[in-house]
């Protein structure tokens, strides 16, 4: 019909039901896939937590033993208390740092503002495990460079700072999440009409009255949401508790789940019981975050011409602000990277000194490049990240078309189901997928496919978010006019919707790729020899005590991620994506 060049009226009859057919097949496949991927593992996790392990000799039996064991001991109370302390501390530290920096950047005339840009990419280029390792090299009581330097300068006997403690964990994780707080609070400040503050100034209020009575009160929903998000992220975080907490016996939920699985014989039931608790906490957290952000929309009054606010003149204090920022920048990027760089040129790890300087060597890099696991893990990482990014972006584009553009009953449910993985901590997701494919043998357990499924599940909500943002901007009439021109649903989707979504698709695709490249906490429960990814290789090097080799790999990894993020930024600019 189209080949003839005439959308002839008489020939219109067969087209609708045929396009109708394709439409429902595509929609059906995507919906089934989403539901399968998001709901099944959760159900099995729940099931497993009430059953004994299924073995060859014994079938699984119903039991409350796992919960009894998990909640019967005072150990669990300690665990809960540790987790809450750790997460609260991390959230507060990250929030205070991030908000202060966001305020300085958005509302004052602090010098070196260009550096603030780096804050938006640091969390992407320095994976948690490398950041933690770097801070061990900086802050451990025996070999930590900062400790040794301070001891040397002030002639102290005792190290000042012990990173292997609850406070150390809070410090490292809080620093690591502070750029995220910076981004969230920057968005909150920007969402506010600056004339709300200016009108307070014109009413005679001074800086503090404006900040307290207007800025803070108006950003209150965003502040609470940010704190909650940070709390959820902290309670989910695995690298810091595992590397800093486990050696000194400070357990939190994530590290306990990991230990329960890795004990012999592994206690999957117990791990599931812990995981259910963790999941309950994160679910409640995410629920309140979504409630808060809809409450915040009432306040986000972006009207008027959005005149850029006059930055507050800090006077001589701006140099203090700049100093604070530079110290922060040192702590979060420069020192961690330099310490890894230093260590990567050593034969055996040693503290910087004249003598060590003369023993610089490229051995760690030689080792890394000849390491048999390396090329395999690079390959696995690439395949997994490219594959999951592509699948996620395509599937979620259909999902969000259904949610945004159609009036199908139950579409809100679909939206929620696709966003469901957001509440899964990586470790819990890994655990539930592991349990499911252990019990339902479809031959993917122990292959790279199980990790692929984990990645797709875990990062689907990100893809959905990117697609929804751009889908909302596509006016319904663009589709309708394609239909009026005689295009079928498939053609419309391929020729109109997807090209219009392209900037969002591309941005989301790269973002998902970057986060999958760094994925550790799900992979750690799912990998087997032969399916290691890069972050797992780093983890193994750490377990083996190969610190200098780890550093060499870490430096290369950070450089590669940096390159990838720059590419993403460049593409974003080229296609006019604003994040």
């Amino acid at each position, binding site marked *: 019909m189209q080949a003839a060049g005439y959308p002839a009226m008489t020939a219109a009859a067969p087209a609708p039901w045929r396009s109708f057919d394709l439409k429902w097949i595509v929609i059906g496949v995507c919906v089934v896939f989403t539901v399968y991927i998001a709901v099944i593992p959760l159900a099995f996790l729940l099931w497993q937590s009430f059953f004994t392990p299924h073995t060859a000799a014994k079938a699984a039996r119903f039991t409350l033993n796992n919960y009894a064991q998990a909640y019967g001991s005072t150990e669990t109370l300690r665990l809960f208390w540790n987790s809450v302390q750790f997460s609260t501390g991390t959230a507060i530290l990250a929030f205070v740092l991030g908000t202060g920096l966001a305020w300085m950047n958005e509302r004052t005339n602090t010098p070196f503002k260009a550096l603030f840009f780096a804050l938006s990419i640091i969390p992407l280029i320095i994976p948690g495990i490398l950041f933690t390792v770097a801070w061990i090299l900086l802050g451990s009581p025996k070999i930590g460079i900062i400790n040794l330097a301070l001891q040397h300068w002030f002639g102290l006997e005792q190290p000042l700072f012990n990173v292997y403690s609850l406070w150390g964990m809070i410090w490292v994780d809080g620093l690591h999440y502070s750029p995220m707080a910076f981004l969230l609070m920057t968005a909150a400040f920007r969402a506010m009409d600056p004339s709300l503050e200016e009108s307070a*100034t014109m*009413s005679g209020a*001074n800086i503090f009255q404006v900040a307290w009575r207007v800025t803070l*009160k108006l950003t209150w929903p965003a502040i609470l949401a940010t704190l909650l998000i940070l709390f959820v992220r902290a309670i989910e975080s695995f690298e810091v508790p595992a590397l800093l907490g486990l050696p000194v016996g400070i357990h939190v939920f994530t590290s306990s789940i990991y230990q329960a699985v890795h004990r012999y014989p592994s206690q999957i039931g117990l791990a599931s019981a812990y995981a259910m608790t963790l999941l309950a906490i994160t679910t409640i957290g995410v629920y309140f975050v979504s409630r808060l952000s809809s409450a915040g929309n009432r306040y986000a009054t972006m*009207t008027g011409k959005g005149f850029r606010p006059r930055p507050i003149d800090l006077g001589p204090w701006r140099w203090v602000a700049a100093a604070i920022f530079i110290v922060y920048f040192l702590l979060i990027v420069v020192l961690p990277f330099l310490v890894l760089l230093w260590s990567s040129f050593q034969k055996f790890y040693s503290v910087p000194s004249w003598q060590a300087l003369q023993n610089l060597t490229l051995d760690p890099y030689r080792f890394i490049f000849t390491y048999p696991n390396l090329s395999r893990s690079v390959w696995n990482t690439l395949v997994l990240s490219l594959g999951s990014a592509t699948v996620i972006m395509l599937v979620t584009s259909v999902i969000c078309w259904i949610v945004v553009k159609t009036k199908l009953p139950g579409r809100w449910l679909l939206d929620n189901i696709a966003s469901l993985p957001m509440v899964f901590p990586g470790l819990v997701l890994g655990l539930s997928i592991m349990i499911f494919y252990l019990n339902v043998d479809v031959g993917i357990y122990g292959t790279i496919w199980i990790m692929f499924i984990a990645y797709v599940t875990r990062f689907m909500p990100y893809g959905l978010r990117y697609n929804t943002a751009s889908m909302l901007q596509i006016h319904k009439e663009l589709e309708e006019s394609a239909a009026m021109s005689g295009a079928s649903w498939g053609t419309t989707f391929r020729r109109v919707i997807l090209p219009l979504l392209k900037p969002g698709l591309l941005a989301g695709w790269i973002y998902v790729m970057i986060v999958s490249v760094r994925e550790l906490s799900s992979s750690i429960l799912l990998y087997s020899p032969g399916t290691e990814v890069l972050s797992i290789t780093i983890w193994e090097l750490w377990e083996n005590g190969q610190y200098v080799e780890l550093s060499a790999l870490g430096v290369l990894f950070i450089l590669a991620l940096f390159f990838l993020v720059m590419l993403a930024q460049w593409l974003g600019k080229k296609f006019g994506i604003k994040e």
Partner: protein
Amino acid sequence: MLKVQGLFTEYPNERGQVVKAAQDVSFEVPEGKLFTLLGPSGCGKTTTLRSIAGLERPRAGEISVGDRVVYSSSRNIFVAPNRRGFGMVFQSYAIWPHMNVFQNAAFPLEVGQRRLSRKEIRDKVMRVLTAVQLESFADREATKLSGGQQQRLALARALVMEPELLLLDEPLSNLDAKLRELMRFELKRLQRELRITTVYVTHDQSEALALSHSIAVMSEGHIQQIGTPREIYERPRTQFVADFVGTTNFVDGTVLGPGAAPGHFRIRTEFGDVEVLSDDSLRSNDRVVLSVRPEDVELAETRPDGDNVWEARVDQKVFLGEFVDFQVKLASRILLSRCHPSLRTPVGDALYVKLHPEKCIALKAA
């Protein structure tokens, strides 16, 4: 009362280029008068207003209110905006959504320099809310107000501290057309009753003509002309002003020499010689542009008496109810004329055009 002298304000935009927003802006507003800055978007009117408010720091110039200098580049004075004590209404109204109507209006009194008792605050706020007819809404959440009510609340908040100077930044532009006309009267009544010195920024010429004691028309950072609404409309000094305020016909011409009365000139145009008025001292052979408003292009089916009369042909006409717009052709020139609907000459027929010399303004060609 308000005196702005030699004001220059510049700021960098997102790409770091310098935007020359206000260039050598000077004007004075007498006590109790409403002064309007009128111009298209990007002409520097809002920046000028924000410089008076203190929200923008000018590069050079001087701003004083009464005997109080609030900004002077030569004496290095810059009074912070919260110490200037001016009331300001923003385009978006900037009503704080976390406070109710009363709290919004009471805020300036609570944060002000002068400590007031609760009762004093209550009295003042209720008085000002009554003035804008919001007294019955005092306990309502601010977000539950309609557009017009929010606008009045913003005005009340600006007036509650009895400011020396009221600054209004396009206060009516977010309202729908009917409401805008209503609020125009309200605003005028309130300003005239309170006799508060006001600077008003707008891009809407009819608003400016309706409200102001005097108007400054701005373009590209410069003030083009300052005058009363009538002066601006009837005696524009530049092509920009004639074009921006109201609708006009432009006709190119060359000066032949002085006309019959002082200030009058004869100019040659493509449809004939015209007797015109000009404030410039024109000499023979100067190139000029003649500006004549459509309502001043008189049409008649019988030849009228006097000068400046030509025969023309009806090219098109549009019936608009209260009046009819005619496009008439004089030689190769099309003039727009706004006539009473009783004139029913059909398209293609001939009629006569008369232009009063006082209504034909000759402007020096750019």
